[in-house]
């Protein structure tokens, strides 16, 4: 059995007939040909697959493509505005918030969710906000710095 789905990924509508068991992450990687979204575990723990569905963070390895039918999905590839990096991308770069980079797309989108729900988080709130994303390289410290920095940039831009 295949079912039709229409998902807008980073502004581009993609229509496909898919097996209902197809995970959103595989839809993104195979049909949208966007491999920035990573698969790091089987159990919804690591957060490497985090994307935004209608602007809200979700683990795309725990979401069926059929569930996202009709939705707007933003992946790491869609975060920058053309050449201009998103404030979070800049901050992760400036604050050395990544090493091997594998968790980074998910980490940045989880941080996006954090700032969406809390524009000026404390360090403690940042740490809690990123509890669903595992990084094995950075010890998280520079990720916390990066998110704090990005919050400042966003706040300054809003003034």
């Amino acid at each position, binding site marked *: 059995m295949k079912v039709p789905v229409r998902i807008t990924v980073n502004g581009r509508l993609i229509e496909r007939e898919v097996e209902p*068991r197809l995970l959103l992450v595989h839809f993104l990687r195979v049909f949208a040909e966007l491999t920035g979204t990573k698969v790091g575990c089987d159990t*919804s723990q690591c957060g490497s697959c985090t994307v935004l569905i209608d602007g809200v*963070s979700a683990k795309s390895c*725990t979401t069926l493509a059929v569930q996202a039918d009709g939705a707007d999905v933003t992946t790491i590839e869609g975060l920058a505005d053309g050449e201009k990096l998103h404030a979070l991308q800049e901050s992760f770069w400036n604050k050395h918030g990544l090493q091997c980079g594998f968790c980074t797309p998910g980490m940045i989108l*989880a941080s996006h969710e954090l700032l969406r729900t809390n524009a000026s988080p404390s360090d403690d709130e940042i740490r809690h906000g990123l509890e*669903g994303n595992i990084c094995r390289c950075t010890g998280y410290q520079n990720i916390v710095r990066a998110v704090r920095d990005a919050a400042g940039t966003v706040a300054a831009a809003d003034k």
Partner: protein
Amino acid sequence: MFAADFEYYRAGSVAEAGQLLAAHPGAKLLAGGHSLIPLLKLRLAAPAAVIDIGRIAELRGISTDGDGLRIGALATHAEIAASDAVREHAAALAEAAGQIGDPAVRNRGTIGGNVAHADPASDLPTVLAALGATVTVAGSGGERSIAVGDFFTGVMTTSLGENDLLTSIRVPSAAGRGTAYVKFSHPASRYAVIGVAVSLGIGTKGGGWISKIKGEQKETVCTEAAVAVGGLVPTPVRCGAVEAALNDQPPTAETFAAAAAAASGDIGDDLLGDVFASGEYRKAVAPVYVRRAIEAAAGRAG
């Protein structure tokens, strides 16, 4: 990890979901998918059909309703955690919802799916037990209500029938009382190793004319105590002995400690454990969490 193939049906209404359930015996319901999809991926479940109820509008929403809350089955943990109505009437529920999994999980996971899945390590069932919630179910015989105490029947089993669909949850208002949820999280899964929910009123005893004749003073006491423990038992346990030890007693540290100590008897001996924390250990330290939950609830009461 890839699920085994299944047929997929999207229900537009509760009635249609009922028809699809009847037509596809053994089908699984899909709401947010955060209980079901992990099982499918690990191939611990391989249903022939999955019925997606995630878009049924009538299952959405959180509203106040007479003396309590009506929470639609599709309300997400994030919605519950952020809801002013829930915070007002059932703060512990918002508190617990905000501690499930992680933000992305809370954005997709629903209260209906969570409760129907009946994972003993889940957070919401414990709070619902303490708050005396009822589960509304649409089945072949129409709609019915099941008290939470009767709903959970064992590890991952409920009184839901084959063709039943959990539609909403009614939570009586605890406004005026203090409620709290305290959790000992598993460091890997983030599920509750121990979860304690408490609802507590602070009122007065005495002060009536007989008391005056007797020369007794009006006294501040705990009232309407409701305490439930989860995580270490197959289904949430209401702690009658703890509640009895609180009611009519002054809200003091001594009362709380004595009441919490009574939790061991309430918890019983049907204990869950794993390589991280044995049942014996969980039971031994549960009173500590019970006391902390009572203290937190008392701090919010009145």
